[in-house]
């Protein structure tokens, strides 16, 4: 039968695209971590998404598992095929399909090499930010699978922050398009897909965000007499409010290896540690930042600090850093590369422990790592011919993991779990956490054929049983059969039950219900007819929330998770909810470590209160908020604010969560370190899910230092065309505004600081160091002066202006409010469509447009003619869809909502969203009917 499959594959792909000779398969038995070996059944080389789909159809019909592979540079054994599965090698799918300079995106086949994208984008002054050390060889597809980081993710974020959409082949061969829930409504599927290590499906095409190449860079190399001083310097740099693009450490052993290699950068052999600090941005002010960093290094005992004098020297330094892993081959026959994360403030302790562990097992360890993120990469040197070392290499690895987890860290920051760390996952996740992850996997891949045996240990804890198969000592047929049976059992649990509606609760005894709720949380924490439900509960602890949900389960009540109740009516009308559970009395700060730039708080804490508690740091999001918005609500709606252009939406800042599931169990997602790819990133799924999957009870965010200066330019004109042109001119310049917001007349009046309310107003905000900001303001004003009809003013004390702006969306609950997102370049077309409708005086509209990311929010008066309104909204939604975006109703009278879907078409991935809902909330208990895709 197997032969028949091979024949079929050859027929589709041609015989030169199928490798099935065992000798030729040998090189595919391992990836960048050759400690793990599994021989595949065959390797196929498709050229297109359609070919991948056909391959997968054939394999899934025969129940043969498959694994996607790019360049095989991964270091977690992720690209190995278990159970003699088939490797789908994407090396030939390396076309760069499109670079869209205006919207700063690239569409690529996922076999494209990471560094080739930046090379191709360079003539347009753009680049792709994630830069793993293997970037000259690794593929975008591999980066997506692992959620790869790199040296510059300290400032620019990891892969998931740069993937806008992905085309994915699912295990049944269907081709779906995943999005972050922005251009297509629904769950952030692309967010949870990135980092799923090929277990959800195969990404064959991706839409990636490109960034403007920073006009100026300063690269500093500082040598230290010992590792501790160097790590303290790292913390001091972060604490000083500097945001380096990269902050890397190399220890003595690594320096020696690198200096012996082709990548020697002139590091002195006797230095015990070296830091590479890179600052980038505008020329203005960069030197003083660099000097500041250099001073900090000297204060912490750096014996020599030098700055790269030119691009050539800079390149040399980076080549040395990035070649470090390979260079270890010079000093050791075998190298086991490890990857773990600790909170930045715990670096000195963790490093000391790692050296100690290596000593204990008589192994040499070299450290080369992303110090700014606390992401360690101990390289354990050994000789596989030495029995003692071979026997202990694993023990040492495990102890390092345990040490880092104990320090509050994670088992992997960027390499992924794959095969290598599967047995460590239980160190940080409970059975419930992992079961939830498996459910999400099942929603994507119900038959369990996508890269099986990776990331999550299946039941019957077979961590120890999972022997590493080699060609000779390969698993016996029986062992394979056993494991398959295991897997099948696990997946059987995941089969979604039939979707039940919660509407079957005709008898509701409100007194009895109130009493049973009060019994859990006390009479003082219950209110009748509040927060949109007959009963509203205000629990004060996670245990109470859990208890309430178990009660709801017993009673079969539909539940609405809530915070302050700002967005209770968001989305489609919720059917028959009995109980709303508000987090607003569950609102304590749990942990705040300024040196780590991380904060953990209960979900009911208000965003405004959190930010007031953070001294010189802040959570840089400004969602719609009149001061009442809770952290849980902000995450559940996931709504970006004006400054999301510069700082990112809530999804970019949530790094950890605890969530109450429908049956009352509390599960954890993510962690408390800024870089973490252990398990699936369920935070992405809950963020923006509008309380339909679970109830967020606790959140961990990564923070930013507060900018030293913030200045806004307010430019006014009677027409918006010239303002959009001015905005575009600024956006395509070298300037880096954090917000570019255009307001309609009337909207402007609410901000007293603006002189005229008859005109359109463009607000451009700059933030950062004094020198940088004042330079940018000057440049921006000069650019705006090209437009004679625009009058510009500079507002230095602008904090009030922006917080007032954030309140606008929550003020008019009796109006019709909708928002649309389209590609940035299509903003004016969308705005024209909105304001130049027939039968609707443009003057009666109030709107606010984020020019930088194509978002538009419009308030209209409701008229009596509902049908006409719906017709007009349908037209607008079609317009948005045809521009490649979407339109969502934010607020509307019930009668309109009952006749017009608030969300619009959820696209070809709608079924996955419904699967996820069915897996996570099988009884449809949470906010039934509220969300997109009929969820």
């Amino acid at each position, binding site marked *: 039968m197997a032969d028949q499959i091979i024949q079929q594959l050859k027929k589709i792909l041609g015989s*030169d695209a199928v*490798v099935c*000779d065992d*000798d*030729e398969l*040998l*090189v*595919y038995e*391992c*990836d*960048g*971590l*050759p400690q793990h070996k599994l021989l595949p059944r065959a*390797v196929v*080389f498709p050229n297109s998404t359609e070919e991948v789909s056909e391959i997968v159809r054939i394999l899934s019909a025969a129940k043969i598992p498959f694994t996607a592979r790019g*360049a*095989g*540079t991964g270091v977690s054994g992720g690209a190995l095929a278990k159970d003699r599965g088939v490797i789908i*090698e994407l*090396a*030939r799918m390396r076309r760069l399909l499109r670079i869209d300079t205006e919207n700063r995106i690239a569409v690529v086949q996922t*076999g494209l*090499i990471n560094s080739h994208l930046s090379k191709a984008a360079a003539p347009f002054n753009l680049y792709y930010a994630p830069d793993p050390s*293997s970037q*000259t*060889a*690794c593929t975008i597809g591999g980066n997506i699978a692992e959620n790869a980081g790199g040296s510059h993710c300290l400032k620019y974020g990891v892969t998931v922050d740069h993937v806008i959409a992905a085309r994915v082949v699912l295990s049944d061969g269907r081709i779906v398009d995943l999005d972050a829930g922005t251009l297509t409504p629904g769950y952030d599927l692309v967010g949870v897909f990135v980092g799923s290590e090929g277990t959800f499906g195969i990404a064959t095409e991706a839409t990636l965000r490109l960034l403007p190449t920073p006009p100026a860079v300063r690269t500093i190399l500082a040598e230290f007499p010992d590792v501790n001083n160097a790590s303290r310097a790292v913390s001091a740099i972060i604490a000083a409010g500097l945001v380096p693009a990269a902050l890397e450490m190399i220890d003595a052993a690594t320096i020696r290896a*690198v200096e*012996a*290699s*082709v*990548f020697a950068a002139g590091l002195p052999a006797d230095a015990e540690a070296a830091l590479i600090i890179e600052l980038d941005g505008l020329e203005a002010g960069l030197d003083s930042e660099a000097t500041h960093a250099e001073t900090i290094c000297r204060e912490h005992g750096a014996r020599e600090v030098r700055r790269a004098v030119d691009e050539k020297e800079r390149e040399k330094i980076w080549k040395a850093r990035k*070649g*470090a*892993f*390979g*260079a*270890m*081959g*010079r000093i050791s*026959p*075998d*190298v086991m590369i490890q990857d773990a994360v600790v909170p930045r403030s715990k670096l000195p302790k963790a490093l000391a422990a790692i050296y100690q562990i290596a000593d204990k097992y008589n192994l040499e360890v070299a450290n080369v790592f992303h110090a700014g993120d606390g992401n360690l990469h101990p390289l354990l040197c050994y000789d*596989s*011919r030495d*029995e003692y070392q*071979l026997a202990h290499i694993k023990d040492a690895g495990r102890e390092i993991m345990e040490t880092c987890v104990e320090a509050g860290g994670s088992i992997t920051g960027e390499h992924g779990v794959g095969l290598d760390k599967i047995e460590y996952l239980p160190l940080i996740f409970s059975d419930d956490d992992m079961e939830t992850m498996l459910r999400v996997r099942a929603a994507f891949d119900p038959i369990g054929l996508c890269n099986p045996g990776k990331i999550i240990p299946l039941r019957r804890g077979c961590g120890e049983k999972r022997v590493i198969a080699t*060609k*000779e000592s390969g698993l016996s047929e029986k062992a394979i059969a056993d494991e398959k049976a295991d897997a099948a059992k696990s997946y059987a649990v995941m089969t979604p039950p039939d979707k039940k509606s919660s509407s079957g609760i005709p008898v509701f005894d409100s007194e009895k219900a109130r009493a049973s709720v009060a019994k859990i949380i006390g009479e003082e924490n219950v209110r009748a007819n509040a927060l949109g439900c007959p009963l509203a509960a205000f629990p004060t602890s996670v245990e109470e929330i859990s208890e309430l949900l178990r009660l709801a389960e017993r009673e079969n009540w539909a539940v609405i998770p809530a915070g302050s109740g700002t967005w209770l009516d968001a989305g489609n009308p919720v059917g028959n909810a009995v109980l709303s559970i508000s987090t607003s009395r569950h609102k304590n700060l749990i942990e705040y470590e300024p040196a780590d730039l991380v904060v953990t708080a209960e979900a009911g804490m208000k965003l405004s209160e959190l930010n007031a508690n953070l001294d010189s740091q802040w959570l840089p999001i400004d969602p719609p908020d009149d001061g009442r918005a809770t952290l849980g609500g902000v995450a559940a709606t996931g709504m970006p604010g004006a400054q999301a252009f510069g700082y990112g939406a809530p999804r970019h800042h949530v790094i950890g969560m605890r969530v109450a599931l429908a049956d009352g169990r509390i599960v954890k997602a993510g962690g408390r370190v800024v870089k973490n790819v252990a398990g699936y990133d369920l935070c992405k799924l809950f963020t923006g899910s509008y309380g339909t999957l679970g109830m967020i009870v606790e959140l961990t965010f990564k923070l930013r230092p507060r900018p030293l200066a913030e200045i806004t330019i307010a430019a006014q004109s009677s027409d918006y065309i010239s303002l959009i042109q001015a905005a575009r001119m600024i956006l395509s310049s070298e300037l880096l505004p954090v917000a570019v917001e255009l307001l309609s007349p009337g909207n402007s009046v609410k901000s007293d600081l603006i002189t005229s309310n008859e005109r359109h107003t463009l607000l451009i905000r700059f933030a950062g160091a004094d020198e940088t900001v004042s330079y940018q303001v000057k440049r921006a004003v000069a650019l705006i002066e090209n437009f004679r009809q625009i009058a510009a003013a500079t507002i230095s004390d602008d904090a009030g202006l922006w917080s007032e702006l954030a309140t606008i969306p929550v003020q008019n609950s009796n109006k019709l409010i909708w928002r649309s997102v389209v590609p940035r370049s299509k903003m004016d077309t969308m705005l024209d469509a909105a304001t130049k409708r027939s039968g609707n005086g443009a003057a009666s509209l109030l709107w606010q447009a984020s020019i930088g990311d194509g978002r538009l929010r419009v308030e209209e008066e409701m008229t009596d003619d509902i049908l006409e309104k719906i017709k007009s909204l349908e037209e607008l939604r079609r317009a948005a869809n045809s521009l490649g975006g979407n339109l969502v109703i934010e607020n509307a009278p019930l009668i309109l909502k009952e006749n017009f879907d608030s969300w619009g078409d959820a696209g070809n991935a709608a079924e996955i969203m419904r699967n996820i809902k069915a897996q996570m909330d099988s009884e449809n208990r949470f906010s039934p009917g509220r969300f997109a895709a009929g969820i």
Partner: protein
Amino acid sequence: MVKNDSLLSDILSKEKEKILACVHCGLCLESCPTYLATGNENDSPRGRIYLIRNVEEGRLQPTSSAFESHINRCLGCRACEQVCPAGVEFGNLLEGARAEISSKKTERGLAYHLQSFLLRYIWLYPKRLRFLFSFSRIIRDIKLPSLLLKTGIPSRFFPRLAFAFALLDASSPAPLNFTKNEDIAEEKETPAATEKKRSVMLFKGCVTEGLFSRINKATGRVLKANRRQTQIPAKQTCCGALHAHSGDLEGAKTLARRNIEAFAADDSPIITNAGGCGAMLCNYGHLLAEDAEYDARAKSFSARVRDISQELPNEVIQANGCGNSDAVTYDSSCHLLYGQHAAGDSLQMLLSANVNYVPLNGSDVCCGGAGIYNLLEPELSSKILGEKLDNIKNSGAKVLATGNPGCHMQIRAGMNLFENSDLKVCHPVEILDESYRCAGRYDNDKAKVKS
């Protein structure tokens, strides 16, 4: 852990430490032209090292077709060495692996048999070799290959033979014809007459002398113009690169010993003008490392080797005021670039001739010539050549300079045969030589001869 006994003879197992140096990081993949062409890891440096490692560890038969075919498909361009952080000496591993293959009796194609026949029974005998090249020159100069190719018959029925004809035809001279440009004032640089002439030895190279003797002559003239006294040792022979690359290490060693003897008169620099030979001569130290008698001599021999462009580094005399408007591009030649590390100097030398230089994309990627790889692995070779030809077309160049006869013939043959283009191909030193001629640098010499 007990390893299986190696299936290898000691040829490859003595390279064990080099194999172990590879940590399997994969940074080499993208540097490999054959991997780029097929996407198959077996055709990548990491894959090939893994195959070698498995043979060494006894998991793979050295006679297996996977081992043989993927080792044979390597161009030997050594671009991977340049990006390898662990410093794996891939070129030496490859030669070991090929030696391993040829030491086992395996079924090989006709082309491979022909190759080993030629290397064994012609190349090792200078007289036979000279005869072969004389014969080839006659065939070339009576335009037989180009006439045959014009009929279209060989291309249609014997594509490999057609390409062989095209290669031979591609070695014909391509005159450059610089003219004086009176607008540019000529700077008369007069080399200090008092400076003592430096003595050098010229390595002629068998293919260069056989088919490109004009390049050796140009080299001689340029050296002389730059105040070098050139000796041409008579007993020199083929460098042995073809033998080493095809696994005939013994043949290579025989030739290496002869050359070491031939150049033993003094320790003046040994000048090469072919990257393939230069890289091989630089490697004599490694080749004869186990030869007690020759080890030390080989190492000091290798240390004396330099490309013509390295011999004339910064002080190379320019001939300003001469040139033509043809766009000239430069292709690195892998062995000059990765083996001899002289491609930068070679380009610099070209630029000193005041040419209208245009850069070539992928100049650092192999052209698919690789000795006679183009005849042994025609399919993969032509795929790789195709990339090179596209890049050359896109550069808009009318002239291409390259410092190795193999690349020279491969590129020009490809352009003639597949692109119907009359791109001129020449050695950088030919261009410098032409600029000297045009500028009148050799006039004195002629006058002297006449008088």
